[in-house]
């Protein structure tokens, strides 16, 4: 499934994951999402150094949902646009 992982290692990884209790597997997915969002926010902070926390969250919404949907939900985003 993963092109950069040896099949034996991948099998072991799946075995380990399967042996986890359900709550931990769910928590893993949750944390993957949260970590991904934190990384995206860090990137936005670098691109827009003067932006407030609220503005960064608004821009993150654009990254996550796409400009059209984010505008429908939250209204227009500040200039310059997050996604060109």
């Amino acid at each position, binding site marked *: 499934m993963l092109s950069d992982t040896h099949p034996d290692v991948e099998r072991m990884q799946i075995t380990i994951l399967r042996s986890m209790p359900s*709550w931990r597997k769910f928590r893993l997915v949750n944390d*993957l*999402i949260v970590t*991904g969002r934190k990384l995206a926010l860090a990137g936005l902070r670098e691109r827009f150094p003067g932006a407030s926390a*609220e503005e960064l*969250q608004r821009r*993150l919404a654009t990254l996550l949902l796409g400009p059209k*949907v984010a505008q429908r939900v939250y209204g227009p985003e500040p200039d310059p646009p997050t996604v060109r």
Partner: protein
Amino acid sequence: MAPNPIPPPSADPAEPLQVLQRVIASLEALGIHYMLVGSFASSLHGFARFTQDADLIVDLFPSQLDAFAQALASDFYVDQGLIQQALKRGTSFNIIHFESSFKVDFFIVGGRNFSKAEFSRRVLRRSIRVRSSKLTCRLPKMPCFQSSIGTAWVVEFRKPSGET
């Protein structure tokens, strides 16, 4: 239900599991049958995939639409027009959690991608504990989410014996 008031996304938003909990609690309260699929469900099989949303299959009837939208509209962007279309066409719709921008996708059972037969094969997988959880529900077949915070029963596809 659109347009909604627009609470801005929060700098300290609820986490995806909490958002999912909130949605499942509403489905349970309204008696709408659902099945959790996608990355959250596949994680139970040992495939932890990165995702940006949660996927649910729902057996939602037009008569339940108002109550469904009302139950979620304070915290989510819910467009009733789009849901009506999805119900008519048997397709999908999404809602978006204002505070976290987390998206939950709903697929209508009996639509293009998910047949009633598949839905009827959903099984109770096991309980999961999420924050402040209390195990209070022990139904044998139906997915269950007892109270707004609590223990979710996760359902998944399971092929009938003999099917490959």
